[in-house]
């Protein structure tokens, strides 16, 4: 029987099971008694930003933009047919996504979990690429790219990243371009697969009402490859300065959209990353959240509306904050937010506001535990950043206003970039 650890989070009413496979693969189970739905995910620490890497023989590879996403599409293709069909014959819904830093394959099901789970572990380990099936995919992915070209929120976001980043490949569209994907072929896809789809670079996460012995025994039986370590990723040096302060694009939209952001030069991993990310979330809520003076003032002025949002993204190789939405006047909205940020950096966060927001964010965290999909994804994301999702509990206990204010002074004194989409 597989030898796993059990960690109880009594305050959350959750139990995490953790298993180390000899190959270096990590597996987790979050048991959800009473849930019909089971979500399982098999992911690699490899995303769109990993377009330069060093192979085990020392050769440095530069691969076309969009290749991680292309590979994600192609893994569904197997010698005996498409995996989507085989999962759907069992009534389960398979899917996958590629982000900046991860590629994840998953399914959710209610019945025949073990059969589905074996299929997932099997196909991700067995790519079946042919010249013909690689060519066929180009038409489909081209339409996916074209769809995003017409998506104003997506354009707004990538134009902002283009302002924030000078060199880092995070500024490149995840799916690449219609042109870049034409350069992708079977051989390049295998190079990437062999480099990144190694057990030591991957994780399995299951969330649902299933037995840990069974889950980890299946993992044990199904993981075939031996430990090959982790590939060496190469990211270019990124200066602290912005690439550009402003970018504008015209699209078919009803009114202007604006998005602003700040690049975080601090690189962390593990618990410290989780702590900084949480602190930044609270700072953003304090400055521009629904309960802030700024949000309400701009809302009253008609400068912003309900679409206004903010977010923190943080990984070991990049970090940034962004916020925005529809606006009647992008320049004015940007100006008001910039002054408020400056003023907040000067005076710091009020302790009572900080405590209230910490309470609210605790509630938001607890809510995520209703969904097996969110749990699986967060556990994976945290693992790749050398941390544990359930440690958020500890973060909320330990986070104080002094630490948060030091993050505020360090990060929010930096220059903001502005991306704008205007109506045609």
């Amino acid at each position: 029987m597989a030898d796993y650890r059990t960690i109880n989070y009594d305050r959350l009413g959750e139990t995490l099971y953790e298993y180390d496979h000899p190959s270096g693969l990590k597996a987790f189970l979050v048991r959800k008694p009473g849930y019909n739905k089971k979500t399982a995910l098999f992911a690699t620490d490899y995303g769109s930003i990993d377009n330069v890497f060093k192979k085990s023989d020392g050769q440095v590879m530069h691969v076309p933009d969009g290749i991680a996403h292309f590979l994600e599409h192609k893994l569904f293709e197997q010698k005996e047919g498409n995996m989507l069909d085989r999962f759907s014959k069992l009534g389960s819904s398979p899917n996958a996504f590629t982000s900046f830093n991860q590629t994840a394959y998953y399914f959710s099901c209610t019945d025949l979990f073990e059969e589905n789970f074996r299929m997932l572990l099997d196909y991700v380990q067995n790519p079946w690429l042919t010249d013909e099936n690689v060519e066929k995919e180009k038409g489909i992915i081209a339409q996916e790219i074209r769809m995003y070209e017409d998506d104003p929120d997506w354009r707004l976001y990538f134009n902002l990243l283009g302002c924030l980043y000078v060199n880092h490949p995070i500024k490149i569209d995840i799916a690449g371009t219609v042109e870049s994907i034409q350069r992708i072929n079977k051989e390049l896809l295998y190079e990437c697969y062999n480099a990144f789809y190694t057990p030591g670079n991957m994780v399995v996460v299951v969330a649902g009402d299933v037995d840990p012995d069974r889950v980890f025994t299946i993992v044990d039986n199904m993981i075939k490859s031996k430990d090959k370590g982790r590939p060496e990723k190469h990211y270019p040096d990124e200066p602290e300065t912005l690439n550009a302060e402003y970018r504008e694009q015209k699209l078919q939209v009803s009114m202007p959209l604006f998005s602003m952001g700040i690049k975080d030069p601090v690189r962390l991993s593990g618990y410290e990353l989780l702590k900084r990310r949480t602190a930044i979330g609270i700072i953003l809520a304090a400055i521009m959240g629904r309960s802030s003076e700024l949000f309400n003032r701009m809302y009253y002025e008609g400068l912003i509306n309900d679409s206004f949002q903010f977010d923190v993204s943080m990984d070991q190789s990049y970090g940034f904050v962004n916020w925005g939405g529809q606006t009647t006047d992008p320049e004015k909205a940007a100006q008001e937010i910039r002054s408020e940020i400056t003023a907040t950096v000067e005076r710091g966060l009020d302790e009572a506001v900080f405590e209230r927001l910490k309470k609210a964010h605790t509630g938001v965290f607890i809510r995520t535990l209703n969904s097996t999909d969110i749990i699986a994804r967060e556990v994976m994301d945290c693992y790749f950043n050398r941390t544990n999702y359930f440690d958020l509990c500890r973060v909320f206990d330990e986070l104080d206003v002094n630490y948060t204010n030091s993050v505020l002074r360090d990060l929010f004194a930096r220059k903001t970039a502005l991306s704008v989409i205007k109506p045609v």
Partner: protein
Amino acid sequence: METAARKTTAEKLAEKNGITFYRINSEKFKTNRVDIFFLDRLERERASANAILPSVLKRGCSKFQTQRELEIRMEELYGAVVDGGCNKKGETQIVSFHMSHIADKYTGKGDKLFDKCSQLLMCILQNPVVEDGGFKASVFRQERDNLVDYIRSRINDKMRFSFLRCIEEMCRGEAFAIPDEGYESDALLLTPQKTYEIYQQMISSYPCYVYMSGSIDDESAYRFIEQFSQIPRTDTGRTGTCEVKKNVSEVRRVDESMDVNQGKLCLGFRTNVEPTSPDYYPLVVYNGILGGDVHSKLFQNVREKASLAYYAQSVLEKYKGLMIIMSGIEHANRDKAEKIILRQFEDMREGNITREELDATKKSLMTGIKTMQDSQGAIVDFFLSQHLIGEGDDFESMARKIEAVTIDDVVRVAQNVQLDTIYFLKPDNPQPAHQDE
């Protein structure tokens, strides 16, 4: 190895003055929640006023006069949510409100959140900020502007925009053509006084369904019912029937140009199946085989075989009996895509359906039924749907009915599905297709 899942039921707790209260009990969720639905017949003269009500009411109440005070209060209650919205199911417009909060045991402080959050919800529903016999004018004007901006911003999401335009064109002259949030021109004419009158009608006379879900004890549940029942009510029952059957004499084509990269093709069909008909579940299976999931004919033929699209799917509108097929394609591939789509539609009619397609569809629907029971929002939506059409299906009986559907049933309903409208959102400056063929 697995814990037996409890049956998910909606227990009727009370029915008073046209308000029906249900409780959906489950210990497995971290949150408790209350959903309130007010129902009105979808009519142009009231649609915009109904649509604006949730946003106006969310702006403050007698106890928390501004949106900001409300937001601060919700943060103090561990990020509680009090929200509202407006949509339509068939030709019924639904003004909805809900609150949710984390269960008391997760606060670690012995807080009693249900009562506090219910009071907040009741306050915005019952005691809006009023001046001169209407909603507070400054707040009202802002929300009117926001509603107009929201209606205009439909064009931002091209997939949804083309879907809505297809329905509008197909159902022109029918109530169902009215968008969920009404029309811009009507929204511009709303006044604080007139809208306040509609609000009073809503609160006092619209048929109303209330669902409490999570782990809510009897005492709290009945206290909430007691509080809610104090609203004076005159029951007028303004919901009506929805005309589903329509004979299409000629297929209509609507092309609209826009400065976009990808064309959006939408085909609107009349299924002629009412939600209460014995043919309804066969229709659900029909839609699943044609375009419901990755195993479907549309996904397989338009995407996997022809590589013409990233998405190709069909969706049902249950109450109006519509089916819409959607796909995003290159302009140059329009005819090809349309031909393949219509071929799949004909195959359904001719009975070219395999046992495997039927089984995969049913299994996928079964998974959907079980999965719904893991989401409080989905459970509430399911029971509301059942209560709206007066059908007493629960999750188990729905599963049995779907299980019983045969290929013959599917082919039978296929005979009555009629193509009505083909809508194409056409790129202004067509670029050459990136297809090799």
